[in-house]
């Protein structure tokens, strides 16, 4: 199903020669999703620069894209419909997400490191529903929180931490899927807090893996962090092999300053990023008014106890995190190269509004200051999207109606600029009012989410929009 270039059986990779669905000569990179009155849900694929690909919904009244696949329903001969792929179990795009706990399609988590939460949409135009026995239609929403920031080279892999294990999964596959081909999950790491979700970070330049291991007091965010050196996810993509060939160099106690409140979200779903200069940035979503905060310090190399300085805050109001259900809580979205990490949480209630920190591993700001973005709407939300090979964007899910000219709009681009030493600074650009190349054209009120295709990271941005080469030669789906 996925469109990841095959290894051809002998390692390396083979650039894909076909295009979108094997016919248009272009791959899809993004999707707009909407509800069409009388027809149900429908979607439009966009190319790497948000240009329209297919189907072309310019004249919504004439659009007849009803069935989404030639797959047939077992026993009755009908074509695939919304019920078969569970789209009908979500609150569609016709209503704002507001303060309800419902499973809305347009939320701050409409794009994740797993792509779309309610479907897997691939660059060749194929798609699947999302469902599994553990978390039902919320499987992607749950698994998005387990993914750790990591700039390993094989972007067909996401690394996850849950139940005290480090796991490698093919993009689009959540926790409960089989391990990425050729890899093996670790067993439960001795003594680790098994409630930690996606808490850990890998830096491929430093070949270093930091693993928050256990709470010291159960309050104030104080944890012991294991520091592994010679940890190499390029040489050893399998978590068991990476650990076997690494050294547990030291363990240090981390104490974040100015910790407002304890919750499962703040204790167990924090996100950590290790920059190339050794700066460790610990980002925590304090639901319900404590805001989103970063704590920063140089990670110690001698096991010395370290205090994380409270550097950035973005305020929030009544809001809820992972305490309130498997589907809630903050998550990361990474650039295609894995070096730029966006961390997103809601501003209001479960899904609405948007707070985000943007951290680049090659940034050298001495204080560890991050770029921030806030959308304080109590009705709509925004999403972090990866763009090109190195950048991130923010897209706002604004109501559109038919050809009224509204619909999703871009708000910011965070463009990575590198100097001759390879140090990155972030150029923040306003994009207010700019939009994707087409609007999918629902004939009713529609809060249209935009998300990246599930296999976005495995394919390379190119000045030739028809290019379909893999991101790099380590993309390999295995045997």
């Amino acid at each position, binding site marked *: 199903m996925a469109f990841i270039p095959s290894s051809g059986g002998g390692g390396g990779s083979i650039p894909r020669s076909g295009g979108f669905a094997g016919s248009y000569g272009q791959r899809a990179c993004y999707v707009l999703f909407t509800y069409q009155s009388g027809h149900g849900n429908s979607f439009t694929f966009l190319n790497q620069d948000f240009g329209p690909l297919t189907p072309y919904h310019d004249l919504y009244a004439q659009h007849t894209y009803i069935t989404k696949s030639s797959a047939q329903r077992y026993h009755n001969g009908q074509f695939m419909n919304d019920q078969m792929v569970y789209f009908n179990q979500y609150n569609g795009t016709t209503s*704002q997400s*507001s*303060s309800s706990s419902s499973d809305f399609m347009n939320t701050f988590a409409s794009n994740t490191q797993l792509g779309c939460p309610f479907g897997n949409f691939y660059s060749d135009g194929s798609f699947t529903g999302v469902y599994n026995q553990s978390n039902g239609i919320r499987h992607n929403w749950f698994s998005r929180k387990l993914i750790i920031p990591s700039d390993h080279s094989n972007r067909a892999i996401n690394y996850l931490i849950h139940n005290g294990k480090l796991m490698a999964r093919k993009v689009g596959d959540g926790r409960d899927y089989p391990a990425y081909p050729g890899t093996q999950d670790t067993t439960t790491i001795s003594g680790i807090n098994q409630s930690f979700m996606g808490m850990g970070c890998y830096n491929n330049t430093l070949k270093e893996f930091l693993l928050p291991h256990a709470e010291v007091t159960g309050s104030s965010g104080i944890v012991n962090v294991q520091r592994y050196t010679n940890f190499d996810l390029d040489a050893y993509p399998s978590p068991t092999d990476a650990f076997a060939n690494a050294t547990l160099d030291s363990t240090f106690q981390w104490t974040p300053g100015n910790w407002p409140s304890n919750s499962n979200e703040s204790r167990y779903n924090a996100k950590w990023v290790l920059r190339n200069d050794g700066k460790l940035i610990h980002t925590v979503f304090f639901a319900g008014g404590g*805001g989103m*905060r970063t704590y920063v310090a140089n990670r110690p190399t001698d096991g010395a106890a370290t205090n994380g300085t*409270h*550097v*950035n*805050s*973005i*305020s929030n*109001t*009544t809001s809820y995190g992972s305490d309130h259900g498997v589907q809630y809580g903050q998550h990361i979205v990474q650039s295609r190269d894995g070096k730029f990490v966006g961390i997103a949480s809601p501003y*209001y209630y479960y899904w609405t509004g948007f707070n985000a920190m943007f951290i680049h591993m090659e940034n050298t700001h001495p*204080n560890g*200051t991050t770029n*921030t973005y*806030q959308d*304080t*709407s*109590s*009705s*709509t939300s925004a999403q972090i999207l990866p763009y090109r090979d190195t950048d991130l964007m923010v897209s706002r899910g604004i*109501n559109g*109606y*038919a050809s*009224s000219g*509204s619909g999703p709009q871009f708000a910011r681009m965070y463009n990575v600029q590198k100097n001759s030493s390879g140090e990155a600074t972030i150029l*923040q650009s*306003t994009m*207010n*009012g700019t939009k994707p190349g087409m609007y999918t054209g629902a004939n*009713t*009120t529609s809060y249209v989410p935009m998300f990246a295709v599930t296999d976005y990271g495995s394919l390379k941005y190119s000045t030739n929009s028809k290019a379909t080469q893999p991101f790099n030669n380590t993309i390999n789906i295995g045997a």
Partner: protein
Amino acid sequence: MTKIYFMQLAEDGPIEKFVGLMPDGEEPEGTIASFEFKKDQSTLANRYSLKDGKLVDDYPDDDDEAVCVKEQEAEAAAAKKLEDDLKKGE
């Protein structure tokens, strides 16, 4: 200290709001005004606007939740109006 910042990133762009803490006196890009909150003052961005260079609470009689609900109702009303207007034109 948590502050509210009003930013205008493009000359003809909308005025945006940000409430949070910036390190070492830094300000968000495009800041045109900023205000520190007083003790016990609501930090809900939604209730404030910038008028004549001053911070104005547009909902002095409402608590934070009521402000957000009013905003939701306004969004729903705007969506309905847009829908009605477009249907009239069909």
